[in-house]
């Protein structure tokens, strides 16, 4: 489903410092797999997610999403993005649109569904994430957890094949993390292909097929969540886990 081969990505900070976000990065993620990416900040995990739907273009290497080589300049990236949903740390809901409009807009504009059908899809998803009663509210009237659940519904409304979660619970108050994680867990159990950048090891343990530990743009260690809890091999991994657990 997702195949990265020797991907390189370098950033330059405003003060011209060079940051190597991805270095000879290779990974293969299969259909239905739930992969959790962990690592210290600046390790390149968010960059990897953002490269998957080309919010960032890679410098070198190959990135194949659902059989399409997205490094090919002729690829219509909008088509690829329709199949890849993304959930952001800061929700990024559209503040000038109601909850319902947030979820229907892309369906109507991009998927060309008619309004009634889009509303039907949206309502079903809002019900699923438990927030249907707020459909006529504006995002600013919702709590963080509610906003993030709407954001998940918005991404799911496109019926994507892959879902990317970029620290989806990091900006939430502790008591709201659970409600968002529950939605994500249900999604994982339904067989969605998911790449999840998070520090929630509980989530990793419960639903992930694989955990990837990254640092300085490289994969340091890979394995099941159980492996990371019981027998991490790298010293760097051990140190990191001791800090977040």
């Amino acid at each position, binding site marked *: 489903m997702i195949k990265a081969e020797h991907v390189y990505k370098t950033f330059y900070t405003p003060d011209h410092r060079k940051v190597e976000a991805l270095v000879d990065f290779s990974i293969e993620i299969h259909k239905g797999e739930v992969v959790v990416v962990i690592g210290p900040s600046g390790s390149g995990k968010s960059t990897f997610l953002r490269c998957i739907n080309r*919010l960032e273009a890679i410098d070198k290497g190959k990135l194949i999403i659902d059989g399409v080589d997205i490094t090919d300049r002729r690829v219509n990236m909008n088509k690829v993005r329709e199949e890849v949903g993304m959930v952001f740390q800061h929700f990024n809901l559209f503040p000038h649109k109601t909850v319902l409009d947030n979820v229907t807009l892309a369906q109507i504009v991009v998927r060309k569904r008619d309004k009634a059908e889009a509303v039907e899809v949206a309502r079903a998803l809002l019900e699923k994430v438990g927030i249907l009663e707020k459909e006529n509210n504006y995002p600013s009237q919702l709590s963080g957890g509610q906003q993030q659940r709407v954001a998940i519904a918005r991404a799911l409304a496109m019926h994507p094949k892959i879902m990317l979660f970029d620290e989806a619970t990091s900006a939430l108050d502790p008591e709201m993390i659970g409600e968002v994680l529950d939605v994500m867990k249900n999604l994982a159990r339904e067989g969605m292909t998911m790449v999840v950048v998070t520090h929630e090891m509980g989530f990793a343990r419960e639903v992930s097929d694989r955990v990837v530990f990254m640092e300085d743009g490289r994969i340091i260690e890979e394995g099941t969540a159980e492996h990371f809890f019981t027998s991490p091999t790298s010293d760097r991994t051990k140190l990191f886990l001791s800090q977040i657990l």
Partner: protein
Amino acid sequence: MRFTLRSLITLVILAALLAAAYYFFITRGISYIWHWESIPEMLFYYGPKSAEDPSVHLRMGILMIGFVMTLKISVVATFFAIIIGTVVGIARLSTEPITRWISSAYVELIRNTPLLVQIYIIYFFAGSMLRVSAFAAGTAALAIFAGAYVGEIVRAGIQSIDRGQMEAARSLGMSYAQAMRHIILPQAFKRIIPPLAGQFISLIKDSSLVSVIALADLMFQGQQAVARTYYAFEIYFTVAALYLVLTFTFSMATQFIERRLRISD
């Protein structure tokens, strides 16, 4: 609106100032015979238009005809200024260098030369080469002038929208244009209503400059009326008041729109 003690004090001070001004003019004995009675017929009159059209109707007087023309010029120029400004604002942020340079050059060129000169250039050049009317030339000059300022306001508005909005829209498969249209511009416009309102109030006032190309706007008609009657004070006060009616109404309208749009904040 709530009136407090402070508003009362403000009113008292204002009344005192007016009284002082009145007293000043009276005691200094400015010997001017006011002819306010001739103003109403410059707005509306009841009678025949001319020898050719002797039918008796309620008709617009000389100043009201100018008022309507100024209104027309302002509406048309504002409409095109918004279009020009939006295009320029987006072009200024383009990743394509040529587009960026051309739009910057336009903004700098227009902002840094006097409007009066631009009106003459467009009128004499476009007017004589392309045979466009004074109305088209005058309105075009105003739209092009205001468009440069609106472009900068729109650019600032777009840049003030969080990057995450564009990323969220693109991640849902929207094209750049779709994201601009549905997500970025609506939010940006809402945010830039106050500076835009200021710009369009300027445009209404600047429209008085088109009187130099014999376009029969409020200013031009006022000058004509003064030339005919020599009642300069009364007429220019009235002209000023009529401009104020336009700008103040516009100002109130934008405040109303601003309040209505605040619902989602």
